[in-house]
């Protein structure tokens, strides 16, 4: 892991960060708040979602502390309920959904396809503002006393039986939803219409494909959530509506509408992360992704099939048994494209020339943990076992494995991978490798015991639990502490590296993407002139020729 790296840093004694780049082009707060540059907006997003991640993380810390003992020692039951609700809401809507797309995706997609900006730069800025407004509303909700519906807003609990701030939370998510819709819409338009000459669909990096697929989900799924929340708010204010059986409504209808969005939403959360993994695995094994087309199409397949499986969250609620059958079958189908991806990544390593920098370590973490999380998803998708496992910690463990072990790992992988491009400086390699290993260990300690807890039948969303579950919960809390350290470390050393990191140069990883062929940090217009693409993605031979040609030029 030491000398055998592929880092090709410029000579540090003479290296300079280019004077003109998107960070230095204009100065002053206003130049940031009114910017339409996708890279600056991505930076704004990065800062804001990090903020929300740590709020959500602190709430997770409270959850784990409370669960250390079987009784409600730390806080009262309704406080606990508010804590896990806000944890879920913030982590899902204010961190994970925008995480990779709105930051890394925003930063990279125009560059990867050779465009100067997203197609609709002002809409892009608008979507950040919407996100911030929604974020403020969420913070307001917390300050004003919180909400305890659970992130799933089950009716009629949320509509008539709680007197907490359901409406402001609902509206916050509504607004955040539109932020996400606009991001997705922008990506789709950009990918369709803004590709550089020669950049055909099958020359696109896989990161673009997976973000494209996620964008489809955002555009088609999110509005349904929006209208559902509107109906909840109306029902709450007018005391009449379509979800409460007392007034002739049907609570199962709410479940249908909610999960119509929220199942596809889990693929919104994972697909961009899968894109990151494709880039990272290819770069650090210096090899074209195995079966490019299969990986590209599997993203689209996940996006499409992802819409047909939502009722697997409702197997025990009293939907028709035949409907359960169909949704279960379709769930099995949607699991297959993920398997294809995992194996294709594994085989990308075959006959590669592999190095183990931090992004790669996180990517390995992703592959292992996502496989576990995904396979346990299949346990839940199987009707017979879901009866026993649903609404227990098995589900909690499942989704933390895919969301934290999967997407969060991918996010960190991507942040490290593109950090040099973004800031022009390298992160410190050794300590970040350590952080990656720490998160991996901490993660398994935290969430693996929860599978056993779930199998034993411990229900989720319990402030207090029977003492026989304590031992495993103590393990889990201990693990969470390690995990917290693992997440705090990158925060610290990445900030440190902004000033003291080594200067990265254009292409420290010797990667093939168009974004690496421009300066770091890039110009506001991304490229000095729009590139004309004449090679496939991940074409390392092209890169070698390119480098050779450049060296020759320099010599001459």
């Amino acid at each position, binding site marked *: 892991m030491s000398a055998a790296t592929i880092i090709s840093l410029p000579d540090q004694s003479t290296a300079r960060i280019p004077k003109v780049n998107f960070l230095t082009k204009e100065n002053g707060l206003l130049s940031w708040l009114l910017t339409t540059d996708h890279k600056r907006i991505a930076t704004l997003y990065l800062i804001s979602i990090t903020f929300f991640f740590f709020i959500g993380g602190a709430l997770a810390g409270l959850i784990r502390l409370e669960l250390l003992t079987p009784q409600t020692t730390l806080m009262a*039951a309704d406080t606990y309920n508010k804590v896990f609700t806000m944890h879920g809401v913030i982590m899902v809507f204010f961190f994970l959904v925008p995480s990779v797309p709105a930051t890394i995706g925003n930063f990279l997609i125009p560059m990867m396809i050779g465009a100067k900006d997203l197609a609709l730069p002002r809409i892009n800025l608008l979507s950040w503002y919407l996100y911030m407004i929604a974020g403020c509303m969420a913070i307001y909700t917390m300050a004003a006393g919180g909400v305890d519906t659970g992130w799933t807003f*089950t009716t009629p609990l949320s509509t008539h039986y709680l007197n907490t701030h359901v409406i402001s939370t609902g509206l916050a998510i509504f607004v955040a939803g539109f932020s996400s819709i606009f991001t997705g819409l922008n990506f789709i338009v950009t990918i369709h219409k803004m590709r550089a000459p020669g950049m055909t669909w099958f020359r696109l990096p896989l990161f673009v494909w997976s973000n494209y697929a996620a964008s489809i989900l955002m555009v088609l799924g999110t509005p349904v959530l929006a209208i559902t929340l509107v109906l909840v708010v109306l029902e709450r204010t007018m005391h009449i509506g379509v979800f409460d059986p007392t007034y002739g409504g049907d609570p199962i209808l709410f479940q249908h509408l909610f999960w119509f969005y929220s199942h596809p939403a889990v693929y919104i959360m994972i697909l961009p992360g899968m894109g990151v993994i494709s880039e990272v695995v290819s770069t650090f094994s210096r*090899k074209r992704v195995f079966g490019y087309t299969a990986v590209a199409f599997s993203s689209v397949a996940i996006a499409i099939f992802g819409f047909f499986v939502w009722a697997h969250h409702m197997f025990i609620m009293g939907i028709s048994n035949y409907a359960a059958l169909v949704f279960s079958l379709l769930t099995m*189908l949607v699991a297959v494209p993920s398997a294809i991806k995992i194996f294709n990544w*594994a085989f990308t390593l*075959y006959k590669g020339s592999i190095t183990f920098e931090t992004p790669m370590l996180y990517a390995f973490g992703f592959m292992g943990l996502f496989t576990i999380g995904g396979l346990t998803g299949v346990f839940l998708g199987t*009707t017979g076992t879901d009866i026993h496992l649903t609404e227990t910690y098995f589900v909690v463990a499942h989704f933390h494995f895919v969301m934290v072990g999967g997407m969060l790992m991918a996010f960190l992988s991507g942040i490290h991978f593109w950090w040099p491009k973004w800031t022009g400086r390298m992160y410190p390699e050794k300590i970040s490798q350590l952080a990656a290993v720490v998160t991996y260990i901490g993660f398994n300690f935290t969430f693996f015991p929860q599978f056993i807890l779930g199998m*034993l039948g411990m229900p989720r969303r319990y*402030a207090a639990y029977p003492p026989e579950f304590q031992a495993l919960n103590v393990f889990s809390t201990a693990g969470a502490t390690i995990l917290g350290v693992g997440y705090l470390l990158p925060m610290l050393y990445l900030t440190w590296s902004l000033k003291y990191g080594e200067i990265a140069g254009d292409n420290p990883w010797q990667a093939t993407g168009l974004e690496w062929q421009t300066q770091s940090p890039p110009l506001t217009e991304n490229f000095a002139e729009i590139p004309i693409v004449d090679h496939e993605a991940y074409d390392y031979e092209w890169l070698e020729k390119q480098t050779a040609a450049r060296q020759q030029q320099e010599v001459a």
Partner: protein
Amino acid sequence: MDHISPVLWQFLQKWLTHFPLFPPEASKIAPQVDALFYFMVLVSLIGLTIVILLIVGFSILYSQKRHPQAVQIEGSTLLEATWTIIPLGLFLVMFVWGALIYFRVYTPPANAMNIYVVGKQWMWKVEHPGGQHEIDMLHIPVGQPIQLTLISQDVFHSFSIPAFRVKREAIPGRYNTVWFEATRTGTFHFFCTQYCGTDHSKMIGEVVVMTPDDYKKWLAGSTSGDSLAQNGERLFASLSCNACHNARPDARGPNLANVYNARLTLSDGQTVTADDAYLRQAILNPSQHITQGYAPIMPTYQGQVSEEGVIALIEYIKHLDSDYRIQQTLNTTELLPDSEGGKSAPASLAPAAQKETKP
């Protein structure tokens, strides 16, 4: 060992001995669920091992030190087809197997003894047909199929018995059912697993599985006097249902004798089976389904009768066959001593079992 403080030592000892990794299997369906579960664990472990082996193996074989020059490979349709079809096949096996279990859990057998469970914030009310009420407790006999008819009075709750591997949501406005057959005596936790507000985590109770004899004793000891059907009869009179539903020729409402499980023709030509759910609907939202030949004059009883009241009414209507008068005098307490001689199956006690005689 002496270095470890005794407190810590006790703690460790307690943990190591009270460290359940596996819930008890206490129902007929549990081993079947577990068989599938273990099959899936096995497949997952194999799959995971393959993935890890591939990653670790390739990482070692093709690390840059050993393999400085990468060989570019496009892909392999054959390989990709392999890892598409094999997981798909395995997943489909799981699907079919799981579906079989699912249908078994949610299709109660005809001879199951019916117990009503009403969830409310934050307690479970259990209503036995003999009129015994319990709160956050459920007493059942071993070796007898039990059907739970679940409903909630307010928000979603979920009735989960991990040891039996069954769980069903209790939702407002509609009956859901689940059944199980306990295979060993003992006390097991049941939980409310659907988040239902502040004291969600306090909606915990215990299932007490008893031998049939103990069960009989328990039934006798905890009866409140009247069976559910008798309560229902009283309600039927006090809500003046009998003003319309009586066997007189000029009755304004249909005769309810033998209506349970009958096929009814509605005024719009459709036919329905008058099951529990239908009867409940007929009392609370009568005009949604009008029986052919009648006017929509029945008033709604929504708000006038509690979920328990509806249950009692339904239980009463279920027993309204021609000889219901005799039935009605059947008091569980009185019956008990008789059944000891000979056919001691507790099934014969349960009113639900009596409907077996019907086609």
